[in-house]
Structure formats: C-alpha cells, structure tokens
C-alpha cells in the first residue's frame, strides 16, 4: 500500500468516524411517543446509520481519488455506490437507497468533472459556442417570457399547473424585489417577509373593513410597506452588514408577534378570512356574483369555469412581476442603482465621493419593501385568507435562498432559482419533506462553490464602447 493510498484511506475513515459520531444519537436513536404515561421510547436505526456511514466512507474515498486525478478508481467506487443505491437488494429504508445512490452519482460526477469542464470551456471558446452563448443570453429571457405568457392558453393549463405557476411567479416577484436590496445594494435583509405581511394585511383589512377593492388597495399596500421600510430602515441602516441582518430578522419577528397578539386589529392567530378576490373591470370571478356585481362569465358570455379565476390571478402576478423586473432593470441603470452597487462594493469610497450612504440604502430598502407590499396584497387576494402563519422567518429564508442561488443581482437567475426551489418540490411531492434540508445545504454549497450564484455574469449598466460581437475580443 502506497503512503498516498494510506493517507486517502485514513482521511475517508476519519470522515466516516465523524459522520458516525454526528449520527450516533440523532439518527441512531429515533425517539417515539408511547402513550402519555410512559413518555418516550426508541426506534433503533443503528443499522441504517451503519449503512450510511459505510456509504460515506466509500463516497469520501471516491471523491479523494477524483480530486487526486485518479479517475478510474473513483468511477468504480461511484458505480458501486450507484449500483447499491439502485439495486433491488433491501436496504433498511428507501431514504438509504436515495442516499447511497446520490452519493454514487456525486462521486461519478466529481470524477468526470474535470473533463466535462474542459470540454465545456473549449465549446465556449469555439466560434459557434460564443455565438450560441451571446444568442442564448439575449433570447433566454424572451423565450421564458413567451412561454410564461402563453402557458394559460395551452392544454397544459390545468388547475395544478396554474396554481404552481401563480406560486412560482409570486416567488419570482418577491425574489426580484429582494434582489434590489440584497443583490444590488448588498443589504442582507432577513425580515423581508414582514413587508409582505404588511401588504397582505393592508389588503385584508381594507377590503373586509372598508370594502375597498384590490386595485384601489394595491398602491396603498405598496405605500404602507414602503413606509414601514423607511421607518424601520432609518435607524438601522447605518449598522454593519451582519448586524443589519439580525436586526431585520428581529423586526420580522416583531411584526409577526404583533400580528398574532393584536387580536382586536388582526384577529390574532385565527387570521382574517372572506377577503374578496381581484376584479376585472368590476367583474368578479365566482360562480355567483354578489348583489350589484357581475361575474366574469356573465360579462364575457361564457360558461363559468373554476380555472378562469386562476388564469386571471396568473396574469395579474405575471404583470406585477414584469413591472417589478422592468422597474429593477431601469433603476439599475440610473444613478441610484449605480450608487447601490457602489455601496455594496465599498461604502467608505462612496462616502468619500459625497454619496449619502444612509439615504441611498434607505431607497433600496423602501423600494424592496414596496414591491413586497404589492406581492403581499396579491397573496391576500389569491388566498382570500391571511394569518400570521404565512409570514414566518422561513419564508424570508426561502426568498433569500432564491436570490442567493440565482446569483445576487441577476434577474434571470432569480427565475431559474424560483423554478428550481419552488417548482421542483411541488412537482415531486415526495421530495417535499426534504425540501428545506436541501435549501439549507444548497445555500452552503453555493456560497462555497459559486458565491456569485448560478448566473454569475454581471452586465455593465452602461458602456462607452459598442458591445463586442460574437467573434471579436
């Protein structure tokens, strides 16, 4: 045995040992209730743990081989893991099949990565590759937009798809809004969902108490949320980045706790129901209109169909999201947008150039809050019910994960990340339980391997020279 091999084995053994120590109690002894009197008992999962630890040992060894440039041993180990994962032999649980199989895929992927990367790099350097890259970057957004616009009139548009579409677009809009704050201005806001809540409750209260309609409340909700953003932001935006993150988290929790406890106003944890949906030129989307109003079906002279309402909601959120996008893209090319990016890069230099850091951050914070307010009132109108449960910290974390994964500052990246993070778990229901685990791990991995996000490219906000075309340099 060569010393090199010995050190790889030692490293893998150490990793497996740490994994065993980590998992011994939390994974190995599953506590279960056994009636109220006896307290807790164990489901022993030590065999599962042992299988997982062995897989980790083999996987780590394979990864070490791969990063060592020894492709064949790595491929063999990966194939073994993959085969065990896919094999019909009975591992103690389906989860373990997945675990072992994915570990195998990881090892295989890692061992093929260098050649894949080289091939990819060469393809990008070739003239056709460059042209494709330029055309792709220019057209991807338009293709996605066209697909989003025509989706409801395709046969795909059943209840489930439209629901999902509305959900994804809501997160796209929130992601674009937060992108202004985090991606452009570099302010880590962990309480973004608070402004979403302000928007949602604004519409919920104004519509149920005063009978105001969706379109009248929408701008008001944005204004309220922006005001909240200004009031909360003013004292805290001087703080260092990480303190700001914690304070915004604190604000988010305060708003949620107030929503729970101020029962007179918000009806507390029970929430507010019976919120009217948005109308189209005064027509409601329901089977029967309330007195004095018409339904959409009556107005158009078509038979009533439940998906009409969903399609309408879909176009509203698509419109809102697009407005958000245009707004953000425009702002980025304006002095204020460049000042945001400059602040993100170096606040001290900004001060030396006479830029007021607090005001500049405040505009980003308030604009982000306003967009969340719009999205919030849409959410209330869609759900027809709001309660504090919808505005927990984890929602903020999901929106942040979308922005981080997409590449802070990248608009198209947010769309891809939203589809990935919101769409995939909804399509594959069984993944749902592992969704948040995967979110968290994705955030860690992205920070380590691609800190600029999936889409890392930054286009200048303006140019002096014409953009170089496909071939030239």
């Amino acid at each position, binding site marked *: 045995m060569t010393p090199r091999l010995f050190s790889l084995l030692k490293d893998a053994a150490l990793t497996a040992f740490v994994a065993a120590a980590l998992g011994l109690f939390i994974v190995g002894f599953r506590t279960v209730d056994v009636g109220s009197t006896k307290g807790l008992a164990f489901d022993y999962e030590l065999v599962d743990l042992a299988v997982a630890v062995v897989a980790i040992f083999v996987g780590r060894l394979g990864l070490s081989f791969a990063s060592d440039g020894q492709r064949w041993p790595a491929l063999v180990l990966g194939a073994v893991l993959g085969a065990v994962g896919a094999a019909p032999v009975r591992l103690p649980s389906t989860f373990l099949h997945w675990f072992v199989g994915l570990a195998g895929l990881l090892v295989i992927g890692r061992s093929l990565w260098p050649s894949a990367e080289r091939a990819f790099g060469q393809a990008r350097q070739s003239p056709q590759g460059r042209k494709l890259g330029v055309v792709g970057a220019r057209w991807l957004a338009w293709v996605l937009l066209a697909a989003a616009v025509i989706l409801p009139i395709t046969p795909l548009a059943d209840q489930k798809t439209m629901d999902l579409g509305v959900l994804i677009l809501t997160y796209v809009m929130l992601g674009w809004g937060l992108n202004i704050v985090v991606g452009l201005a570099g302010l880590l806001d962990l309480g973004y969902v608070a402004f979403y809540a302000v928007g949602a409750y604004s519409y919920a209260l104004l519509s149920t108490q005063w009978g105001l309609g969706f379109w009248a409340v929408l701008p008001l909700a944005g204004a309220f949320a922006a005001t909240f953003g200004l009031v909360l932001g003013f004292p805290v935006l001087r703080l260092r980045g990480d303190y700001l993150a914690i304070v915004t988290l604190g604000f988010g929790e305060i708003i949620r706790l107030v929503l729970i406890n101020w029962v007179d106003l918000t009806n507390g944890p029970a929430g507010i129901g019976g919120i009217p949906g948005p109308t189209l030129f005064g027509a409601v989307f329901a089977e029967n209109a309330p007195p004095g109003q018409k339904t959409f079906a009556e107005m158009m002279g078509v038979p009533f169909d439940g998906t009409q309402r969903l399609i309408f909601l879909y176009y509203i959120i698509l419109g809102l999201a697009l407005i958000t996008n245009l707004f953000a893209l425009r702002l980025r090319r304006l002095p204020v947008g460049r000042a945001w990016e400059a602040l993100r890069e170096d606040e001290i230099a900004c001060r030396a150039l006479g830029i007021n850091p607090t005001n500049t951050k405040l505009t980003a914070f308030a604009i982000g809050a306003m967009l969340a307010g719009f999205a919030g009132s849409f959410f209330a109108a869609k759900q027809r019910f709001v309660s504090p449960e919808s505005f927990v910290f984890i929602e903020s974390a999901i929106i942040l994960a979308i922005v981080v994964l997409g590449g802070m500052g990248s608009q198209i990246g947010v769309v891809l990340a939203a589809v990935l993070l919101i769409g995939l778990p909804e399509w594959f229901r069984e993944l749902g339980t592992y969704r948040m685990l995967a979110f968290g791990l994705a955030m860690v991995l992205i920070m380590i391997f691609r800190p600029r996000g999936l889409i890392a490219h*930054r286009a200048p906000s303006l140019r002096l020279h014409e953009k170089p075309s496909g071939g030239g340099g």
Partner: protein
Amino acid sequence: MTADQALIDVEHLTMRFGGLVAIDDVSFKAQPRQITAIIGPNGAGKTTVFNCITGFYKPTIGRLTLRGDREYLLERMLGHEIGQQARVARTFQNIRLFPGMTVLENLMVAQHNKLMRASGMSVFGLLGLNRYRVAEAAAVEKARGWLERIDLVVDADRPAGELPYGAQRRLEIARAMCTEPCLLCLDEPAAGLNPRESAELNELLVSIRDRDGIGVLLIEHDMSVVMRISDHVVVLDYGRKIAEGVPDDVRRDPAVIHAYLGTGEEGADA
C-alpha cells in the same frame, strides 16, 4: 498671499484615540492652485490628518476651514457632506475602487449627486425623460475626457478590479476629479508605482494644478515626487508639525533631517 485666501486652513488640529495622541496641535494652510505635500516618517499622523479633513474622524480639538464656493467648517460636517457640499475629494492609501464595476461606471458613480439631481431623484430617469438623458450623456463625456487624460479609454468597459495596479491608482484620481472638487487629497498616490508610472503621475498632478486649477493636498513618501512638484511642504513627526516651507528650505531643515535620518544624537550628527 494673505491667510484669508488659503483654500484650507487647519488650526490646532488634535486627534486622540483613547490615550494615544495621533496628532498634536497641528496647524497649516494649503493655497488654491498649489500642490501642498504632507510628509513625515511612518506613523507621523499624516493619514489621520486626511481622515479628519475628509470627515472619517471627528477631530478631538481643532478647526478646519475650507474656502470653496463659500466657507465650510469641515469638523462640523458629516462624512459624506464634505464630498457633497464642501467638495473635498480624496483617494486612499490602499486603493478603494469599486472593483466589480467597470471603469466607466466608477467615474459615473463619482458624478452621483449631479446625476441624482438631473434624474429628479430617479423619477425623471424612470420615466426616461430627455432632461436626464442629456445629463447622462454629459457625464459620460466628462468621464471620457478623464479616461483620455489617464490613458484608459480602451479599458472603459472592463471591471476596475482587473486593471493593473498603476492604472488603478490613476483611475482613483480621475474618479476623485469627476466629483468636481475644489480640493483634492491624495494619500500616497505614488506608492507601488515604477519610475515611469511615477513620472506620468507627476505630469497628471501638475496638469490638475495648472490646467484644472485645483488645489492638491498630497501625502507622499517618495521624496523625488515631493521635491519635484510640490509648492509647499508640511513635515509631521510623531503627530507634531516640525517644519513647513518651500521644498528646498524643508530639505535643509535640521529638524527634518533629524526626523528622517537620525534615530539618536549620533544619527543627527552624521
């Protein structure tokens, strides 16, 4: 020239950090259309003087009067107001560009306040009004002018962080100049430059003085730069001013020779 016409008047400036006295009762003046150099050994308090003038530190004692379009008492102003209203621009010892933004964008950010007004706090800009477009085009032209002067036109659309070191130094000066300052403070602009770049820098600084008519305040280690281009030299040592005058006088001043060469009595004699 009488004292009243001085561009900046530093009087009894004192800065303490806890028990440490970084600057002790320093007074000097810098005239408009002149290059004033502040020199001194490491730790003499030069950068601290700059940080007081540009509002990064609040002086413990002292008065800093700037005579630009009107009189400003800098010690009473917040950090960014000094750049915005009194129009004092500065560069940093360890370059502070916006590395991820392009060269051109760096120069556009420097014109932020002017452009903000033209864009009607972004409202006109969002609506795409002509008034803003004209202002933006003018700002780009100004930036192009500076890029020509520092020979970076071809690199305008590259990220500033990718430029070689010497180019970054020049760009930082151009960026400060794009704020249309009346006083330009440069913190060791020649540090790390090779002799050719250093000579180019001298030319640039002289042209800023003569062509743009801007007063320059300069911290420098490189004595050849100081002696060749400065009109007035202030020497600091251990936070005190030990000499002041035209370069040739300062060079012969025994206190200066002692501070630079002598570590003890023998050193001063030798």
